[in-house]
């Protein structure tokens, strides 16, 4: 469980996060949603410590990140896997090299064991036979999947994904969502996903935190989101005609 307590962060005098509180549960897919520019990435980077908030507490199962020294942070990070908005694969390494990288840095496995583990992770994300390719030779969706494989290589306790399905077609997005959801439940990971894709929200949102202009507006799950009376959230989630119709349909059916 990760608890975030009244985090405030500003850049150049402009406050991006205002006193944000949130709880992210173990074994659940926790979603952070919000408009582009609302501060999702900044929030996620604050939680993992890449950005240092001015105020607040970030508790990883009770351990406060803000009070840790370099060595403790380093130790904690070995339990963290993260998928960046732009994949952030190492260009100079092959797909296999990328997935083996954390194993090589943090375990004493033999090369054969590492290769086996890396191949297992790649299989887990449905990527076989691309071992020897370089990131530049892969499509966006494949890069994301390699990044997921790399993030789960060390069996993390906490998995962070910054927009895992931005720029992907709906079908691939759903595959990736299901994959993340499966991994979360299978290994009992605390997974936090940034997204503004409504398909993911309504598909895998077990605990949804809505960020609006740097404030935490709303918390709930995918059922509750249909009944919300929060204006900003309604406007955001049901912005398109299609989702308006879906909402009405679901509400009508519920009343029958």
């Amino acid at each position, binding site marked *: 469980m990760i608890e975030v307590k009244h985090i405030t962060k500003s850049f150049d005098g402009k406050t991006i996060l205002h006193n944000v509180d949130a709880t992210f549960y173990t074994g659940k897919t926790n979603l952070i949603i919000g408009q582009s520019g609302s501060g999702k990435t900044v929030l996620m980077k604050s939680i993992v410590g890449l950005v240092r908030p001015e105020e607040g507490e970030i508790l990883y199962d009770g351990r406060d990140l803000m009070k840790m020294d370099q060595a403790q942070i380093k130790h904690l990070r070995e339990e963290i896997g993260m998928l960046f908005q*732009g994949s952030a694969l190492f260009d100079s390494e092959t797909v296999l090299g990328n997935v083996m990288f954390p194993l090589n*840095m943090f375990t004493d496995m033999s090369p054969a064991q590492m290769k086996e583990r890396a191949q297992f992770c790649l299989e887990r994300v449905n990527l076989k036979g691309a071992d020897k390719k370089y990131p530049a030779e892969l499509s966006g969706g494949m890069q994301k999947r390699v990044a997921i494989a790399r993030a789960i290589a060390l069996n993390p306790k906490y998995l962070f994904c910054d927009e895992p399905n931005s720029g992907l077609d709906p079908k691939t997005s759903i595959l990736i969502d299901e994959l993340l959801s499966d991994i979360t439940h299978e290994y009992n990971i605390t997974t936090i996903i940034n997204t503004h894709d409504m398909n993911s929200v309504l598909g895998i949102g077990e605990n949804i935190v809505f960020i609006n202009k740097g404030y935490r507006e709303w918390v709930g799950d995918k059922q509750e989101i249909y009944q919300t009376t929060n204006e900003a959230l309604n406007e955001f989630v049901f912005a398109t005609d299609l989702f308006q119709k879906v909402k009405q349909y679901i509400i009508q059916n519920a009343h029958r």
Partner: protein
Amino acid sequence: MSRVFTIPDKWKVFCSRTIFEITKLGVDSIPLVMIISVFIGAVIAIQMQLNISSPLIPSYSVGLATRDIVLLEFSNSILCLILAGKVGSNIASEIGTMRVTEQIDALEIMGVNSCNFLVLPKVVGFVLFMPVLVAFCIATSLFGGFGVAVFTDLISVSRYVYGLQALFQEWYVWYGFIKSLFFAFIISSISSFCGYYVRGGALEVGKASTNAVVSSSIFILLMDVVLTKLLLQ
């Protein structure tokens, strides 16, 4: 700074990365060094011959002057200015790209000390290999001058070779090597710094790589004056 010069997390990884950097930054520069040296060596020999052809000056001076110019200045300072262009921009753009595509953040998230992991092998590798480049440079430049003696009738071969050996001061060789080590450190560390602190996108990576070349060149020239004053007086 202190994050760069800490003990690597894993020696095996550090060693293999250092060897990789030696190949990339050092060995791959050998052809460039040799091409430049052979031509500059030839030009120095010709110019010496044209400028000091006087009955008062012994004819072996051409070899001697060529040798001293190469040992004192060309094989270290000038060579490093050229390498600042090749190696410096390479390092800055590589690290800068890793920064703007979040690869450095990805390293940090895994718990890797990214400064140490990326920068130290480059600095150590390049500094270690620099003397080899200098040696190649000296040998090929003098060979370039020798080529002039062989293929033209400006200088006689025996006079040139005699000049190369005349009044030899061993300290000049050491002086050149010592200077080059400082310069190699300047190039690799300043360029890494420029790349590591890039903010923004591809445009800034380009600027960082230009900055890296300009600042390392200036520092090399400053250091050149300081070291020459310290070492040759």
